[in-house]
């Protein structure tokens, strides 16, 4: 059976390991972490979500060609 001091050392080591990996404990960081896990949308997703039509996209591409 392990001695009392060994158990204590293990407990301390476990606690510090947890501290290293644990995220900053605040309500805000929890909220942001949830939001961050959302997969990024593609350009097509953004256009569909916003209701950008083919005509709008064509106009944007023409403006890019003219401006750049």
């Amino acid at each position, binding site marked *: 059976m392990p001695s009392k001091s060994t158990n204590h050392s293990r407990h301390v080591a476990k606690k510090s390991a947890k501290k290293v990996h644990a995220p900053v404990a605040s309500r805000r960081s929890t909220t*942001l972490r949830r939001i961050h896990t*959302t997969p990024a949308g593609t350009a097509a997703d953004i256009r569909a979500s*916003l209701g950008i039509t083919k005509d709008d996209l064509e*106009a944007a591409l023409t403006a890019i060609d003219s*401006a*750049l």
Partner: protein
Amino acid sequence: MAARPSIPDNKAVFLNVPFDRSYEPVFLGIVSALVSLGRTPRCVLEIADRGQGRLRRILKLMQSCRVSIHDLSRVGGPARFNMPFELGLAYAMRAYRSPQNLYLFVILESTPHRLSRTLSDMAAHDPAIHEGTGRGAIRAVLNSLGTPSAGPFPEDVDTLYRRLSKVARELKRRDRTQTLFKRGTFLRTVAAATALATQASLIAP
């Protein structure tokens, strides 16, 4: 009568910002950063008013988003009450939505420490400071909604922003308008931002 709730789009970000010409650089910075993060910038401009009223349109749009950005940097006269009012709506949505359907809001300001005087009720919330510039807006949005380890890097978004600013000028010229804050011009500006972000490999096509 309350607006009918819709299923929130996780990637949609409602923009509650001043629609004036001097704000356009900051607005383009916000749009550049959001598109680079694969998020959809939404604002009341995009919905044509079919008699339902502006506030109803705003509520419906906010309910369809998961996140909102509120810029409280316009503090001079004449008084602009729309932004703090809509922040109040967002605060209520955050307070009363279920944890599974969490709502997040981000506050933007141009000047540090001013919010504690202009809106002391929000004293516990630190605004992201954009210093009234597009580059500042990019960093404020990336810091608030981005994941530093996953990118994009602010320098990459700066390049997109510079290109988008040129394209936005061209779009205004073609649309014969002095401002970006018209429905069609706004939609085409976001369309241009997605095309430029795809070209820069910041997001997938």
